[in-house]
């Protein structure tokens, strides 16, 4: 079932985008595809929210964008991680892991 980004905890989508871009420079669609594949269909993202996150992250200086040509020679905007984004990813990922562990622990005590 698709979920809106606002349903996810704040910043979850951001950290996923950063993680995705840490692999390679990608355009928006590729990012969405990548996340959906890695999430094995559990994480279906609303596309509009993804683009919001991209522009937000670019504004924050975590990623930068450049127009280039896609695999099938279409003009597309490619995003890549900046050094600041890389640092942000490290910090966010660590937080997220601690958080997930905490939430999991609570759920298991049921």
């Amino acid at each position, binding site marked *: 079932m698709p979920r809106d980004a606002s349903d996810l905890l704040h910043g979850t989508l951001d950290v996923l985008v950063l993680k995705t871009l840490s692999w390679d420079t990608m355009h928006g*669609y590729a990012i969405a595809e990548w996340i959906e594949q890695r999430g094995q269909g559990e994480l279906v993202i609303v*596309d509009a*929210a993804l*683009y*919001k996150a991209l*522009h937000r992250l670019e504004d924050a200086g975590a990623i930068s964008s*450049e*127009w280039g040509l896609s695999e099938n020679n*279409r003009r597309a*905007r490619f995003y890549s991680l900046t050094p600041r984004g890389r640092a942000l990813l490290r910090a966010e990922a660590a937080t997220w892991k601690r958080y997930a562990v905490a939430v999991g622990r609570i759920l298991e005590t049921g």
Partner: protein
Amino acid sequence: MRRAFRLPGTRHRIERELDEEVRFHVERRAKALEATGLSPEEAEAEAWRKFGDVQDLRQYCMSIDVAHLQRARWRERLDILGQDFRFALRQFRRAPGFAAVAAVTLALGIGATTAIFSVVNGVVLRPLPFDHSDQLVELWGLDAKGDQLHFADPTFDTLAASSHTLSAVAEYNEYGMSIVNHGEVSRVNASGVTKQFFNILRAKPAIGRFFDPDEQRPGAPMAVVISDGLWTRQFGKSPGVIGSTMRSGTEPITVVGVLRPGQELPADVDIWYARERYPENDSYTAHNWRVIGRLRPGTTVAQANHDVSTVLRRLHDAVGDATWTFDGSAVSLLDEIVGNFTILLGLAFAASGVLLLIACANVASLGVARMAAREEEMAVRLAIGAGRARLAQQLLVETSTLSALGCVGGLMIGAAGVRLLLLLRPELIPRVGELSLDWRVLVFAMAVSAATAIALGLAAASRTARGDLRATLSQSQRMQGGGGASYRLRGSLVVVQLAMTVVLLVAAGLLAKSFVREVTIDPGFRTRGMVVASMPFDTGVGANGMARRTRYYDDITERARAIPGVTGVGVSDAAPFAGGSSNGDFLILSNASVTVTPQEMETLFRDKAHTGWATYRLASPGYFKALGMPVLEGRVFDDGDRAGTPDVAVINASLAKKQWPNENPIGKVVNFGNIDGDMTPATIVGVVGDTREEDLALDPEPAIFFSYRQRPGSSTGDMYVILSTAAEAPTIRSARQTFRLVRTDVPMRFQTIEDIVGRSMGSQRFMLLLVGVFGAIALLLATLGVYSVISYVVAQRGRELSIRVALGASASEIVRLVLGQGITLSLVGAMVGVAAALGAVRALKHLLYQVSTTDPVAFGAVLVVLCAVGLMASYLPARRAARLPPMDVLRAG
């Protein structure tokens, strides 16, 4: 090298790119859905559905991206500026000499302009420290010749009653007064003011109050408002001053209020009291009062001027010859206070502006040399794709950095200059206490620097923009430093510099010549080794008063004579350049037994054959000898002339020549009782030489001297004891001690006549010094200019000169060749300068004494100096050229 990324241009563009991005995404998604078996239409609809709210996304992204873009642009601009700034600093480090000379030159120009502007600001621009001070006016009566007259009481009353443009008017005056505070005597300036005075100014007391109606009636005890200065000096700013009493003579005076600092009017007054304590004088010719007024809201000074003129002309029509006031005028109070100084200041400001232009021309000319050396760099950078705008910006940053340095230096010089001005001539500059470097001066200095930076930057950039790339690149191998165009530009900048230097130097020369003329005028009295002691005038009213005064001055004279080194002692009611003497019409009588009443006098004055005009003076027997005034005919006073013997008078040569051109004035009888109230006729017994005592540049005025032993005198000012001596300083010390022994309650002030004369030349000296200093700086800069342009020529023509040497030209021929260029430059500069100076120095006309603005000596001297400097400045590079080892240059070429 930095990645040159391009930013999307507009808001519109951001929108388009976002749409494109979304479309790409949806198309890819639709393709993927098609692959799962959906029809193209279904796939696209599903893709859009999955995408979510596009409108919301667009709004969200726009708000972020526009701000982001703006920030990015600013960041980039600042980045580039920072780069340019660092580049400029690198350039300066590479050529520290150029940077230092340019910055110092600009600092001189900016500093001079800033210093003068701070005076303009403090004196002229800043309003007077009163509420709505633009409504304040000074009013004047005008006599038949149109000269300004003070007001008489009835004239003032008429004006107060009939003016419709003024909401209120007030009389005030100013004179010296001795006050005793805690047993200590001091001399202050006092001013009697009528009821409306402080209301008109809208002044506020710092503490206490102004006058009560009870203090503003005839015979009321004396209540005074004192200045902040007096409060500080004598009461240590204690609030307890209110209600405390001092004495003036035997009269107690009570302090009721203290005025705020800066609100003193007239400026050097320390004590104000209610003028109503004394009765009004019914005479229309007792011109004792100055008058201020406040304009009704909405009226102009011009309207008030017209109004006052109408009222006073109507008054003259009504009372006729009883009044000498024919007309009247109104002047804004600021103009009245600042007055003539504005003209002086305008000239000084213009001179500083010229200096700034010279400094700019100098830096521009230096800059052209640098640009010439960098032409290749610029051409290469243009060739590899730097935009011209980008290069222009870089040059602008360079010149701005220079100007900023110049601005800082200029402010320091300006601050020092203001301090120097204050040290030099405080009393010349009105409102001098209000001078400071405030924000307006700061803004002015920065604006001047910015204008300088832009002018210099544009000048440099326009050359780059015009430069022909290929020509520069191909010729740069052969010729370091630009072609003929660059020489022409630099040459003309130097010519401009030289020309403006000529203007300043000619102005300085004219002022100097006039100054010398004026100080070498024979004033008609001795100025060296003369000491003047001034003390309050003893009116000596009544027989007892006269006797007491005579005893006092005789006693002082006796003691002064005993001081070692003193060769002559005189007492008089006026000292050179101290003012204070009265003048007016006098009657010529057939013999000494004719008696005239004051009422008859007015009618008798209509008989011009028996009326003369002169300055009324009191003098002691020793006065003429002490001042070194020659006795031309008859005798001066002696000890036989005293109370009880027939009144005698001594006149000066001017009066003798004017009144009795073909007769012997000795034995003529005059009545000058309208001035001193004593209607006893006096017989002329002698003629003395003329003196110029008010203004060296003016012709001597006719004068009649009376003996202080016989006549009461008229002065409300001071009495002066004048001593001729071998040594001034010890005489002042001894006199100060011994005069105190006669009377301890009389405050005294000692000066030398040389100081007084020097002060009277204050404005001339000020202008001379200012223009002289500016001229000297200008000459120095112009010398630098000539030197650098000739050095540049030598460098440029090095190859040609070497070939000449190789072909057998002698060193002196080479020197002559280069010198020729320097002289040509100087001569052209001089010609242009002379033409400009002929026009510009006309502004100095009224400052010059017996020197024409086209004075050939001043012009000639400046031309000689300029050519000499031109020669000197080109000689060094010329000699360098002559000593070049020819083979080195040829090989290097």
